[in-house]
């Protein structure tokens, strides 16, 4: 029977080619849309690596408007942090730059241990884990131990460790980047002191990226660039009243600065709604494409099966049961889908999407591929099943007369 079906498909080259082209195109669209959705869902589900609830974002700016590095002093930051920590409602306070959900980002890249790596980087003081609820997988966070260390201490995410060293067991390893050209300045020496599971500065919609923290502790003295954001972890249910009191206290402590306080939860909503715009646009376009594909495929398959009503009648007249015909038509469609899917998968696997579009993990890619293959089978079989059943339920004489 399979041979018989193959022969039919082969001799109906033109119709089969049309169907195959439609199925192939549908598969590509289906795969694209599925990949986008699976990537978004995967991003949304992965843990952030920090806790934004009950954390406040405090922006610190010199009121003179001059460049802050020239007017800001480590001593000011130390005093401000101490002042905030005096409040009983404040559980922790720490400096970070850039802060979670902030629009700014720092990128770094280099060849480390023979591997090229691009990663996001932020500076933070010794108290960040308490202020942000960060937990380490291995090693430790920055501390006084690092004062005067020859190599700059860094804490890296697990993905960074695996990318560079093929293992998460990297505490104590040298992570100094190689010098690129002879004329460029030698990169600073760096040593890994701790590993985080993950840290996603941009929030739930951020794709997987490597992340590295460097130490910026005002109290250590050796600080290249002063952070301008303090994160304050407050007791649950703290409200505007505390915000007001904090603001007044900060202004009294250092009148030369202006301060701005915003709950991290609010920054998160803002950030997510900004990231959601392209996502929602993509979703609407994707949905539209899916509907188009479903309609197109149903139309083509419907027409294909309806055209064969007479053939179906003939088969019935020669002894095929309704169920046989029904199964045969679906088997033929499944055969075509298989050919289209094989071609589609071959093409999709050739294109190194994972290299072009960063942030697609191999599991996500594989899952999307599997989902779109299943989806195409489902869609095609559903589109063919109804007309096939209709044709099979006719009396053979009636089906044979069908125009």
């Amino acid at each position, binding site marked *: 029977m399979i041979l018989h079906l193959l022969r*039919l498909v082969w*001799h109906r080259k033109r119709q089969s080619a049309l169907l195959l082209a439609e199925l192939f195109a549908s598969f590509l669209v289906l795969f694209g849309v599925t990949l986008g959705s699976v990537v978004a869902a995967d991003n949304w589900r992965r843990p952030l690596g920090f806790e934004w609830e009950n954390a406040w974002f405090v922006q610190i700016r010199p009121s003179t408007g001059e460049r802050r590095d020239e007017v800001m002093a480590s001593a000011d930051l130390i005093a401000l942090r101490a002042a905030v920590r005096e409040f009983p409602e404040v559980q922790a306070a720490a400096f970070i730059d850039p802060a979670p959900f902030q629009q700014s980002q720092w990128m770094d890249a280099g060849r480390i241990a023979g591997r090229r790596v691009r990663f996001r980087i932020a500076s933070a003081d010794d108290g960040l884990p308490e202020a942000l609820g960060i937990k380490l997988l291995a090693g430790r966070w920055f501390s006084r131990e690092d004062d005067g260390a020859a190599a700059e201490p860094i804490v890296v995410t697990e993905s960074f460790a695996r990318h560079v060293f093929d293992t998460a067991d990297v505490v104590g390893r040298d992570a100094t980047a190689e010098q690129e050209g002879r004329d460029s300045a030698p990169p600073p020496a760096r040593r890994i002191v701790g590993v985080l599971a993950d840290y996603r500065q941009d929030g739930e919609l951020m794709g997987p990226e490597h992340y590295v923290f460097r130490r910026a502790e005002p109290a250590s003295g050796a600080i290249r660039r002063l952070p301008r954001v303090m994160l304050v972890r407050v007791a649950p249910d703290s409200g505007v009243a505390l915000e007001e009191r904090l603001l007044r206290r900060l202004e009294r402590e250092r009148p030369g600065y202006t301060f701005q306080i915003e709950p991290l939860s609010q920054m998160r909503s803002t950030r997510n709604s900004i990231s959601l715009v392209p996502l929602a646009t993509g979703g609407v376009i994707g949905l539209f494409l899916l509907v188009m594909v479903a309609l197109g495929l149903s139309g083509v398959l419907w027409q294909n099966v309806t055209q064969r009503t*007479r053939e179906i009648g003939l088969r*019935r*007249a*020669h*002894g095929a*049961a*309704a169920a046989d015909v029904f199964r045969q038509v679906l088997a033929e469609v499944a055969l075509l889908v298989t050919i289209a899917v094989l071609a589609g998968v071959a093409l999709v696997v050739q294109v190194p999407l994972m290299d072009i579009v960063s942030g697609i993990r191999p599991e996500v890619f594989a899952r999307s591929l599997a989902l779109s293959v299943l989806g195409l089978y489902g869609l095609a079989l559903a589109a063919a099943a109804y007309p096939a059943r209709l044709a099979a339920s006719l009396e053979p*004489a009636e089906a044979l007369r069908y125009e």
Partner: protein
Amino acid sequence: MIRLANVEKVYRTDRIETVALSQIDLTVAAGEFVAVMGPSGCGKSTLLNLIGLLDAPSSGTIELAGKPVASYRDREVSRLRNQTIGFVFQTFHLIPDLRVLDNVELPLLYRKMSGAERRARATRALERVGLSSRLQHFPSQLSGGQQQRVAIARAMAGEPRILLADEPTGNLDSQMGDEVMGLLEDLNQKEGTTIVMVTHDQRQADKAHRTIRIFDGRQVAC
């Protein structure tokens, strides 16, 4: 073998009702060779469709092998069509996208049988109708008479006990027509196949055991 009792067939379209057959009582014994004659449009094909279980009567009963057909389920009706009945259509109904050999194999496809045996049986049937040199042709590459013979070969390939032929010699010249008739007589005599054949040709009808005449949907005594 075949019994029709008070059978009526009415075609209903949007506005008109066509009574194609009415008050048909007919018995065909096993091994009989019956010719059906009558003017165009009198209901001959309709009768054959009913006997071949391709269509259901509007009223009356049809019995095949002693059991009313209406009581069969789809599986059983399909098995009867497949194994007991061979049908030669007035308009051939060959599948244009399949080669001659594959067309003839079609009824065998719905039987438990090895591919090699199917091939062998279909080839033998085509040899009997004198088309062994056209196995790999497509229907569109054959003349009308050759297509007719492919349709006969297809009906014969399953070695049915009942052969229903709707004007099997209609598209053939008289010599070829005689050959096909010889083939049918052969099947009837040597293999005991029950044959019901529609024809316009009195000469061919004379070769049958008996002739049923239909006029305007009714049986005419003769």
